[in-house]
């Protein structure tokens, strides 16, 4: 019969583990309690012993996979008739246990120790040396440790080595190579504390600012047929998006606004900055900065949008500060750094902070602290060229606003159809606390600032 071996909780309250190395392959003969696989948990790297003697019939997860406790990882044919229960029950009949027998005490020489306790005799050359936290970091950043030289004692790979490698041009950059980074902040939705994005943008200059070219278009969506594990940021993204999709009832409003005045205002502000020699500040002043200022002021006017329904769904917490998450595309996916107190900054401060955070997100120097505490998120999906979208709210927030591509479009002005550069604006809200009236009021307030940027001077 086939004994299916499910990943056990080898710690205390463990949920998942990474498959580090298979010590056996399909067709190999194993004895009971023979180590068959090394797994890495939050706490330690451990060897798992075979639950039965027999032949390895199938290995169902690959090295590098992160597996949930309870997932079948290997099937062992124990050679018995298929009438017995197909569980990993004890096989008392199999007495062969060479690797786990007690040391035969002869001359005091140390024979192979019993299987479990401290793993000894491990072929150290086959596995890169790194701590579990470094391995986790590498998995998150998509860095293959086997390709890295370690700078620590005895060639140990340090977190710094992984971070260096994860940077574009690093010694072993991730498979998804970064194109030259351009300054700005574009993209779609995502998460709060950790990396956890939605979809990566295409390489195009967006109308609101240059788009960092995260992935060459030709590389998008390329995967051979078959099942592939979700790793790193993609895995976190999947979990985050599934959570928000299944817990927050979204409503999304869509509208469009004449962006002429906004673009003109930006141009004049830039010219003014350049006149006073503030070249860097002028460059940082993208249209998205003005949009962020408009949203921040609007959040101040409608506190219930700057809020979140609490996890048990019975209360809402209104945030004191307005901290805007700005989705930034990176080679590995989206990261959402947070501009704190966006409502209290002047335009130059806002511009410089958005530029700094976008750069930090792209070159991986952004700190965990800078990814936390967002109360509302902006997504510049229009950098990809789209018009309308239905962005997903990040867990712990109540709304997300997205901006489509600015383009010349026909609109009616004073009874005549004219060509104007318009900006599509979409707003997804948590319908548990935000009804259509508030949703529309919020969106129209933002549109008002865009149509008449001078009113930003009035504050909220």
């Amino acid at each position, binding site marked *: 019969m086939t004994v299916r*071996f*499910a*990943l*056990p*909780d*080898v*710690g*205390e309250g463990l949920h998942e583990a990474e498959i580090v190395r298979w010590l056996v392959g399909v067709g190999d003969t194993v004895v009971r*309690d023979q180590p068959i696989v090394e797994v890495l948990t939050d*706490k*330690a*790297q*451990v*060897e*798992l*012993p075979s*639950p039965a003697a027999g032949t390895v019939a199938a290995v169902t997860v690959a090295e590098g996979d992160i597996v949930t406790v309870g997932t079948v990882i290997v099937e062992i044919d124990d050679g018995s008739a298929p009438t017995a229960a197909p569980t*990993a*029950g*004890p096989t*008392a009949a199999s*007495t062969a*246990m060479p690797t*786990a*027998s*007690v*040391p*035969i*005490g*002869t*001359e*005091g*020489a*140390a*024979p192979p*120790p*019993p*299987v*479990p*306790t*401290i*793993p*000894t005799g491990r072929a150290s050359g086959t596995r890169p040396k790194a*701590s579990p936290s470094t391995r986790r970091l590498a998995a998150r950043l998509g860095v293959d440790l086997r390709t890295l030289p370690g700078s620590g004692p005895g060639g140990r790979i340090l977190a710094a080595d992984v971070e260096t490698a994860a940077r574009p041009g690093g010694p072993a950059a991730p498979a998804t190579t970064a194109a030259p980074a351009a300054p700005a902040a574009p993209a779609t939705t995502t998460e709060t504390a950790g990396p956890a994005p939605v979809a990566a943008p295409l390489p195009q200059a967006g109308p609101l600012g240059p788009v960092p070219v995260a992935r060459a278009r030709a590389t998008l969506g390329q995967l051979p047929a078959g099942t592939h594990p979700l790793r790193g940021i993609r895995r976190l993204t999947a979990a985050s998006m599934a959570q928000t999709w299944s817990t927050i009832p979204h409503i999304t409003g869509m509208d469009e606004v004449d962006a002429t005045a906004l673009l003109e205002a930006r141009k004049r502000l830039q010219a003014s900055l350049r006149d006073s020699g503030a070249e860097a500040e002028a460059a940082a002043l993208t249209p998205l900065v003005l949009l962020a200022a408009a949203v921040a002021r609007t959040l101040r006017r409608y506190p219930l949008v700057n809020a979140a329904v609490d996890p048990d769904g019975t209360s809402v917490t209104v945030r004191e500060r307005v901290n805007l998450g700005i989705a930034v595309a990176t080679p590995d996916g989206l990261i959402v750094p947070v501009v704190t107190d966006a409502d209290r900054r002047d335009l130059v401060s806002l511009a410089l902070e958005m530029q700094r955070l976008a750069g930090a997100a792209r070159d991986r120097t952004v700190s965990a602290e800078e990814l936390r505490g967002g109360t509302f998120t902006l997504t510049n999906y229009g950098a990809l060229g789209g018009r309308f979208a239905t962005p997903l709210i990040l867990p712990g927030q109540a709304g997300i606003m997205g901006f489509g591509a600015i383009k010349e479009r026909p609109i009616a002005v004073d009874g005549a159809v004219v060509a104007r550069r318009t900006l599509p604006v979409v707003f997804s809200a948590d319908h548990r606390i935000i009804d259509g009236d508030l949703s529309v009021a919020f969106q129209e307030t933002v549109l008002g600032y865009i149509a008449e940027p001078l009113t930003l001077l009035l504050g909220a």
Partner: protein
Amino acid sequence: MDTSAVQRGPTDAELVGMLQTMIAARIYSTRCFNLQRQGRLGTMAPIDGNEATVVGCTYALQPEHDWIFSQYREFYALGRYGEEVIRRQVLYLAGHPEGSCYPAGVNVFPAQISLAAQIPHAVGMAWGQLRQGLPGVSVAFFGDGASSEGDFYEAANFAAVIKAPVIFMLINNGWAISTPTARQTAAATFADKAAAFGMPGVRVDGRDPIAVWEVVAAARARAVAGEGPTLVEAVTYRLGHHTTADDPTRYIPAEDMAAARAKDPVITYAAQLRELGLWDDAAQAAAEATAQAAIDAAVDAALATPLAPDAFFDHVYAETTPRMERQRALLLELEGKGQS
């Protein structure tokens, strides 16, 4: 070697019995470790390195009179108290409250997880033995780490004052989880602490079961004679994990572990008995086979015992309270919904 000491101490049959029990301890513990790694038993603490201390101690006791108060690690090596101990231990690891219920005649208290909490229990039992004029002693097993707990100081002080027939078996295996002895105490030895209580403190090689036997036999004689408790510091080395939830390679230097493994008590004691002509390959094979069969039987029985998650309510009070009955009902309801 000087065999005169051995001849004054345990008989040849006891010398062999000690080795058989040590081998069984290693096999029992290893099997339970592997079963934990296969998801079939809960967290456990391997015995590796402590066998000689526990076995040497228990062979100097009289199981029909003397009580064992152990922490979580020693049960695999309590073979001197009968095979029922390992059967109960596997039941315990499999989640059955019955694993903590030793039948009458097996003078073993259930595993104590709270550090040092078994030490006052041992003193309390010894006090009772004293007051009732019973012939036995009580033995508390605890570690170098547990010796920093207040329970140890209070219990040891009280025991010395009332001259309770108790033996404090402090197993100094070098590590309290990841804390080395150098960071555990500023005292030169743990045995030195006995002076503060006014009791004898003896330091013994915990890897030598014969030495431990002699020290404990003397301590027992003292206790039974009404002279009070003894603190025994048995020095050994933990040859692996603190528990299955721990990774010792992150704090025990590899060279230290290699040096300790070269003095593995199960191996060195077997070599010693071979020199004495008391042990050979056939004896080794037989001991391993016997232990393997015993643990397999214990495991089969434990895993075949149906789990009743609400059983633990039965063992808190003699009569369950209404509040606990409500909790039990809630648990069963959740279990019925597959949410337990």
